[in-house]
C-alpha cells in the first residue's frame, strides 16, 4: 500500500518534471525569465515553476482525505519534480546541446534552479522551494471550503496584475501606479495590497455563492431593477475604453473584438448546432476581401465604393459563402465535416494567394488602400475610433445570438446538436436549420473581416491561414461551446493576453494546443459552461421554496 502511494507520488512528480522540461526546452521558461511580477525576484518563470510544483502536490494529495496525508505525499511529489528541474539544469551546464536544442542554454539552468545554477547551493534551493510548495499546497487544501480557493484566486490575480504592469501602469492614476508597481512588476507592498484586496473580493463572492439558493432568491427580487443598471454600467465602461486606453490598448481591444465577432459566429455553428467548422477563416477572408475589392482602387474594375455601401455587400457575400459551404456538407457530421470545412478554408486561402486571381485579389502582396468609413464629416480612422464600430458590431451580434438562441430556430439548432435523427423525427427541417446556422454564423465572420480590412487598410493572404480558425475554435472551447460569456472570456484570454504580452506571441499556438487538449480532458464544458436552462434558473429561484435545493442543483445541466 505504502509502496504504491510512494510510487504514485513520485510518478506524478516525474511527469510534472517532464512538463517543466518541455516548457523549458521549447523556450517558454527562458523567455519569461525577464518578466518580473513581484519585486525584483519573482519572475514569471519562477511563478510557472512553482505553479508546476503546486500542481504536482495538489494532484498527488487530492486523493487523500486530510492534511496529514496530503502534506507529506504532496511534498514528496513536489520534491521529485524539483529534482527533475535540477537534473535538467545539471545536464544543461555540463553538456552543450545548443547545436540541437535552441533553448538549452546555461541561462535556462540558472532559471531552473531559481537563480543559483547547478551547484550544491542550487540543489538545496530547489529542494527547499519544492518542499515549501508541497507543504503550502497541502496546508491550503486542508483549509475549510472557500478559503483555499480564495487564496489561490487572489494569488493568481496578483500575478496577473503583475504581468500586466506595462499595460495597466500608464492607465492608473500616477500615485497608484508608483505605489503598486516597481520598475518591473508589482512592488512588494503593492503585491500585498493587491493580494489582500483580491482575497477580500473573492471571499465575498464565494460566501455569497456558498449560501446558494437563499442568496439567489434574495437577489432575484431586485433583479428586474438591478439588471438594467448593471448592464448600463457595463456598457458605459465598455464604451469609454478608447478614452482612457491609448493607442496600443485600443488596438488590442479591436483585435479582441474581431475575434469576439468570429467567436459569436462560430458559436452559432459549433456551439449551438454542434457542427465543427475548421474553415471558419474562409468567411473572415470573404468579408475582408469583399471590402478590399470593392473599396480599393488597386484591384478589380478599379472602381471604388464607399465603406458603408461595401459593408452590407460584404456581409451578404459571406452569407452566400456560408450557404455555399453549408450546402455540400449538409449530410456530414463530426470529423468528415471538420475536414471538409478545413478544405474549404484552405481552398479560399490558396485561391486568394494565386497569381491566377492576382488581377482581382492582389495575389501574395494583397490589397492596400482599403476605404475607411465616414460618418457625416467624421472620418473613422484611428483604432480608438474604430473601436466604437467594433463594439456596436459585437453588441449587435451578441444581441442577435441571444434572440436566435431563445427562438424556435435556436431550439432547432440545439435539437440537431443533441440528436439529428430525432430532431428530424420531430419535424425539424435539417436543411434549413443547418443552412441558417452556417449562413448567419458566416455573416458575423464576414462582418469581422470587413471591419478588419478597413481598420488595417490592407489585406494579405497570410492573415487568413488555418491558424485563425484554430484560434476561434480554441477560444470557444476555452470559454465553453455554446456559451456567450464564454466567447468573451475565451477571446480575452486567448487573443487579448497574447497581444498584450509580446513574449506570449511566440507561444500562443503552443498554448492553443495545450488549451484544446487540457480542456477536453479536464473540463469539456469550458470555463463558463453554457446555461441552456437560463429560464430554468430564473424560475428555480421563484420556486425555490417548492423544489428541494438538491433538485435544482442537479437540474442545472
Amino acid at each position, binding site marked *: 500500500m505504502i509502496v504504491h502511494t510512494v510510487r504514485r507520488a513520485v510518478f506524478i512528480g516525474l511527469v510534472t518534471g517532464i512538463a517543466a522540461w518541455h516548457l523549458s526546452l521549447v523556450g517558454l521558461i527562458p523567455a519569461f525569465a525577464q518578466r518580473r511580477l513581484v519585486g525584483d525576484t519573482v519572475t514569471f518563470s519562477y511563478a510557472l515553476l512553482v505553479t508546476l510544483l503546486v500542481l504536482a502536490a495538489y494532484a498527488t494529495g487530492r486523493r487523500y482525505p486530510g492534511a496529514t496525508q496530503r502534506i507529506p505525499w504532496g511534498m514528496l511529489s513536489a520534491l521529485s519534480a524539483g529534482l527533475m528541474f535540477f537534473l535538467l539544469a545539471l545536464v544543461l551546464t555540463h553538456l552543450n546541446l545548443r547545436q*540541437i536544442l535552441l533553448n538549452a542554454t546555461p541561462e535556462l539552468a540558472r532559471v531552473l534552479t531559481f537563480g543559483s545554477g547547478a551547484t550544491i547551493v542550487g540543489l538545496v534551493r530547489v529542494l527547499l522551494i519544492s518542499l515549501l510548495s508541497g507543504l503550502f499546497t497541502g496546508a491550503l487544501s486542508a483549509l475549510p471550503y472557500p478559503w483555499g480557493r480564495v487564496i489561490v484566486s487572489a494569488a493568481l490575480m496578483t500575478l496577473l496584475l503583475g504581468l500586466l504592469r506595462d499595460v495597466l501602469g500608464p492607465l492608473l492614476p500616477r500615485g497608484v501606479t508608483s505605489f503598486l508597481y516597481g520598475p518591473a512588476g508589482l512592488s512588494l507592498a503593492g503585491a500585498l495590497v493587491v493580494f489582500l484586496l483580491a482575497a477580500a473580493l473573492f471571499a465575498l463572492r464565494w460566501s455569497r455563492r456558498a449560501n446558494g439558493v437563499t442568496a439567489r432568491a434574495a437577489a432575484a427580487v431586485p433583479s428586474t431593477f438591478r439588471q438594467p443598471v448593471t448592464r448600463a454600467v457595463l456598457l458605459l465602461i465598455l464604451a469609454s475604453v478608447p478614452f482612457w486606453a491609448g493607442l496600443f490598448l485600443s488596438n488590442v481591444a479591436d483585435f479582441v473584438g474581431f475575434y469576439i465577432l468570429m467567436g459569436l459566429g462560430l458559436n452559432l455553428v459549433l456551439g449551438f448546432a454542434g457542427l465543427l467548422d475548421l474553415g471558419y477563416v474562409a468567411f473572415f477572408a470573404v468579408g475582408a476581401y469583399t471590402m478590399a475589392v470593392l473599396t480599393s482602387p488597386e484591384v478589380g474594375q478599379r472602381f471604388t465604393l464607399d465603406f458603408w455601401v461595401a459593408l452590407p455587400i460584404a456581409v451578404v457575400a459571406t452569407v452566400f459563402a456560408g450557404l455555399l459551404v453549408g450546402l455540400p*456538407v449538409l449530410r456530414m457530421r463530426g470529423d468528415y465535416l471538420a475536414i471538409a470545412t478545413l*478544405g474549404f478554408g484552405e481552398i479560399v486561402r490558396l485561391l486568394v494567394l494565386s497569381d491566377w486571381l492576382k488581377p482581382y485579389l492582389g495575389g501574395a502582396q494583397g490589397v492596400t488602400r482599403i476605404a475607411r468609413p465616414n460618418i457625416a464629416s467624421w472620418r473613422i480612422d484611428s483604432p480608438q475610433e474604430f473601436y466604437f464600430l467594433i463594439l456596436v458590431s459585437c453588441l449587435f451580434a451578441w444581441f442577435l445570438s441571444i434572440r436566435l438562441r431563445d427562438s424556435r430556430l435556436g431550439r432547432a439548432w440545439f435539437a440537431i446538436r443533441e440528436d439529428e435523427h430525432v430532431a428530424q423525427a420531430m419535424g425539424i427541417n435539417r436543411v434549413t436549420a443547418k443552412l441558417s446556422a452556417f449562413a448567419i454564423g458566416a455573416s458575423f465572420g464576414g462582418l469581422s473581416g470587413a471591419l478588419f480590412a478597413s481598420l488595417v487598410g490592407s489585406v494579405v493572404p497570410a492573415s487568413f491561414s488555418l491558424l485563425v480558425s484554430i484560434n476561434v475554435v480554441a477560444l470557444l472551447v476555452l470559454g465553453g461551446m455554446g456559451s456567450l460569456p464564454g466567447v468573451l472570456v475565451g477571446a480575452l484570454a486567448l487573443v487579448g493576453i497574447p497581444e498584450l504580452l509580446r513574449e506570449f506571441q511566440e507561444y500562443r499556438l503552443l498554448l492553443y494546443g495545450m488549451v484544446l487538449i487540457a480542456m477536453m480532458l479536464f473540463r469539456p464544458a469550458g470555463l463558463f459552461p453554457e446555461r441552456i436552462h437560463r429560464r430554468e434558473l430564473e424560475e428555480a429561484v421563484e420556486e425555490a421554496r417548492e423544489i428541494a435545493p438538491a433538485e435544482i442543483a442537479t437540474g442545472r445541466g
Partner: protein
Amino acid sequence: MTIAAPQRLTGGRRIDISQLIVWGIGGLLLTIVFLGSILTLRAGHYSAAQWRDFIVFGIAQGAIYALIALGYTMVYGVLRMINFAHGEVFMSGAMTTFFLADYLNRSGFLKSHPWVSLIAMLLFSGLVSMTVAVLVERIAYRPLRGAPRLVPLITAVGASFFLQYTFRGLFGSGVRAYPAIPVLQGKLWVFQKTQIAVFVGVLITLVLLVLFLQRTRAGLAIRAVAEDREAAALMGVDVDRAIVTTFAVGGFMAGIAGVLYALVFIQVQFFMGFLPGIKAFTAAVLGGIGNLPGAAVGGLVLGVIESIGPSLFFDGYGIRAAHQLKDVIAFTILVLILIFRPTGLLGERLGGEERL
C-alpha cells in the same frame, strides 16, 4: 383495403433543391477539368517526356502520401477517429532525424557507409515518430475513448498544434537542409535515384505491414479490435495494447515516410507535416478510409493527379502559374470525395457513421 400494385420508388422525392445545387457544382467542376484537359492537350505545350516526368514525380510523391495514409487508415479502422496529429507525427521523425543525418554527414560516415546510414536514419525516424504517436494516444486520446465524437477530434487538433509548436520551440523555426545521400544522386533511366529509393522503401514497408496484420497474433488482435472492440476484449484481446500497437505501427511508417520525404525535398521544417498530413488523409479517404490497399492506391492516385493536374487541367485556359493551384486541386478532391463518395474509390469503409 385496396391493394396497390407493387410500385418501384425512384427515390426522386428525396432529392431536394439543395442536393441538385451540389450536383450542379460538382458537374460544373468536372466540365471545367475535362474541357481544360482537352484544351491543354490540343495546345501541345508539353512533350511526352514532360508528361512522363510529371507522372514519375507524382508516383514518388504519392508513394509517400500512401505511407502516411496507412497510418490514418489504420487508426481510423481501429478507433473510428481521424488522428489529426498524424501529419505532425510524420514531421517529428523527419525533424529529429535531421540531427542524426547532419551528424553522420559531418563525421563522414554518410559518405563511407551510405546504406548503413540510410537504414539507421529510417529506423531512428521511425522510432521517434512511433514514440510521439504512442504518447499522443496515451495522453490525448485514450482518456477520451467513448466521449462524443467532437471531443477527441478537438484534442486531435490540439495535439497537432501542440506538436508543431513544440518542435518549433525545441529546434527553431528555420528551414534545415537535409544532407544528400551520395549513392542516391543522379538518375537511373528516367528516374531520379531518390525516387526509386522512395518507391522501394514504400513497397517494402507495405509488404511488411500486410504480413504483420495478416500473419501475426498482434495483427489478428488489431483486426479484431477494428471490427468489434468489445467482442475482441471478450476473446482475451488486450484492447489497449492493440490500439497502442496500431498507433505505434502507423507512427513508425510515418517516421519512415518522413525521411523519404526529406530525401526528395532535401529540407525539413516544423510546419512540414501539415500539408502532407492533409494530403495523406485525402489519399486515405480517396481509397476508402479504413481500407489498407485503398490508402496505398489513393496515395498514388492523388500524387499523380497533383503532379499532372495543374498543367493538364488549367494550362489550356492560359491560367498563369498553374502550379500554384496544385494544393487547390488536392483540397478540391478531398472535399468532392467527402461529398460525393465518402466510401472512397474502393468502396469499402470500416465503420463510419450510422445514419440511424
